[in-house]
């Protein structure tokens, strides 16, 4: 009798031991691992995983949405506890069906940086692009004293991130009747295209006071065009992303400002929120209602930061 009780107790202890010893595994379906931005997200996830003692399985889609779908399916097969997804095509729902599949298999899904396009995703952690655009707008309005002519360089037509950044920017600029937007044109995120579009725009609008580019590459292209036209000294150029090249340009006194996003923090936070979801702990998120076919989205937005010549040294490493 006594022996039996001890045996049962031992079994219970052993089972508890197994339960607790089983490490939590987080799966991350990455967009690509050759862009510094996504490498920073990955590093954030890995550092957080190390700190909290969880295991990470990382699959890379190499920018291909079909591979991404397969990778999420393989993560479901690997029976991870949570799946983090960075969707491939901004503005599409290419990871939505995969996310639905995971949720159906009882695995919660967290979006990292880009929206998966499924209302079943628990939460999406991203940088507040609208706030970043607003910061850029406020900076330009302040330096111009509320009066001047502005050119905007956008990302590719239809790109959500570009739309959000430019949207936040315009929201602020509209409050200043003295500031006129001469043109707002796509330059497809590229330096070369930024240069060409800016060259053309300078022909049409020779006196411009400020340029807002929705990413740093286009801003750096615009700077080249302004240099060639000997107008850089009199023009404010503001970029977005705080890439190393942009920071150096600010240090040289060519670019005026850029907006810093926080990919590392996005990754780090994704792991923390994943653990909260697994433990059933509450966390704060805001509810965004997007038009059909997107529907409801829960988001945590990390604020963006303005970098100018005053604080650039802090970010230059």
């Amino acid at each position, binding site marked *: 009798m006594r022996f039996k009780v001890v045996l049962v107790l031992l079994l219970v202890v052993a089972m508890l031991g197994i339960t607790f010893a089983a490490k939590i595994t987080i799966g991350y379906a990455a967009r690509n691992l050759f862009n510094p931005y996504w490498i920073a997200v990955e590093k954030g996830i890995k550092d957080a995983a190390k700190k909290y003692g969880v295991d990470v399985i990382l699959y*890379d889609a190499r920018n291909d*949405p*079909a591979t991404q779908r397969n990778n999420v399916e393989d993560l479901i*097969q690997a029976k991870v506890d949570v799946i983090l997804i960075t969707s491939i*095509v901004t503005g*599409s729902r290419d990871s*939505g*069906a995969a996310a639905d599949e995971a949720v159906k298999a009882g695995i919660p899904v967290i979006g990292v940086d880009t929206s998966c*396009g499924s209302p079943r995703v628990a939460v999406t952690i991203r940088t507040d692009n609208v706030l970043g655009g607003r910061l850029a707008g406020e900076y330009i309005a302040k330096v111009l004293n509320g009066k001047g002519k502005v050119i905007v360089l956008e990302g590719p037509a239809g790109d959500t991130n570009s739309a959000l950044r430019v949207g936040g920017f315009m929201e602020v600029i509209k409050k200043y009747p003295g500031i006129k937007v001469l043109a707002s044109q796509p330059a497809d995120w590229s330096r070369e295209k930024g240069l060409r579009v800016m060259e053309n725009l300078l022909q049409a609008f020779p006196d411009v006071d400020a340029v807002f580019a929705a990413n740093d590459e286009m801003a750096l292209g615009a700077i080249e065009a302004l240099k060639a036209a000997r107008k850089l000294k009199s023009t404010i150029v503001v970029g977005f992303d705080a890439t190393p090249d942009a920071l150096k340009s600010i240090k040289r006194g060519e670019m005026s400002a850029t907006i810093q996003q926080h990919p590392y923090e996005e990754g780090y936070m994704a792991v923390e929120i994943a653990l909260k979801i697994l433990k059933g702990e509450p966390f704060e998120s805001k509810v965004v209602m997007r038009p059909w076919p997107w529907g409801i989205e829960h988001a945590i937005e990390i604020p963006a930061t303005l970098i100018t010549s005053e604080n650039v040294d802090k970010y230059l490493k």
Partner: protein
Amino acid sequence: MALNDANEGFMKTLINSIKNAGILLALIGLGVFLSIVSDVFLTVSNITNIFRQVSSNLILSVGTALVILTGGIDVSIGSIMAFSSAVAASLMMKVGCILASVVGLLVGAALGALNGIAVGLLGLEPFVVTLSSMAAVRAMTFIYTKGYPISTVPEEYNVLGSGYLGPFPIPTLLSLGLFVVVFLVLRYTPFGRHIYATGDNEIAAIHSGINVKAVKIAVYTLNGLFAAFAGLILVARLNSAIPTIGSDAPFDAIAAVVMGGISLSGGRGSLLGALVGVLLLGTINNGLNLLRIHAFWQGFVRGVVIFIAIVIDRFRATSRGK
């Protein structure tokens, strides 16, 4: 020779293809290895998963096999897939999923037919023809979509990519169904024999009264149609049509077909080999993930395994006295 092959009994053909395909050894070897090192690999749900993941490559490989059997090649199917799926997805909200899908399939077949006419009637080099249509159709996709992904795909359409019929995923049933139909057509119909004959010896085929031009137009048209079909499944799997999709698709299909022992010079090989090739590629991708091989090494391992599979196949072919 090829004509005789086609007349052999089904079982004999099956046994022959298995005996001849060194690739099957590679697949079995890899399967055994993965079952030992991973406790997830050999589960019903993971095998189902692999079959579902390879469904669009299987459809593309079936079409590619037809083209290669006639001695041709088609590198435009990724672009055709992207364009036809964009057309279909853009129409779904307006005319309903079924009609939109039919339009998408017709667009794919029409583009394939253009390839076929250039190759068959004008006698142009297949690689150059399809290389130029690859570029032009991809550009058409960007023009049509203005570079935007199309995400207005109704939820019901997911069934095509994520649905089940009993325990079987619908994309798996569709792709295997297509495979079986084309396999039977190749084995038991005059059209199938004409495909082999065209690739085996075109002059002889013409002399024996086969309309080689029509055969060529037909296989490229079918390849375009199948590419559109694979594109529709991808739309369902991704909830959207994406203009950049499928840029690697023709190369995955060609790799699977060639690994499966279908000769690039045409006229020789069995569709069963292509199926094994597709499964081998799918198993490699799944296995590399389950073994947690880092992304940067995955491409390397994939290349090496494909190479080894082809070497095994080659040596077995040599030992058969080819």
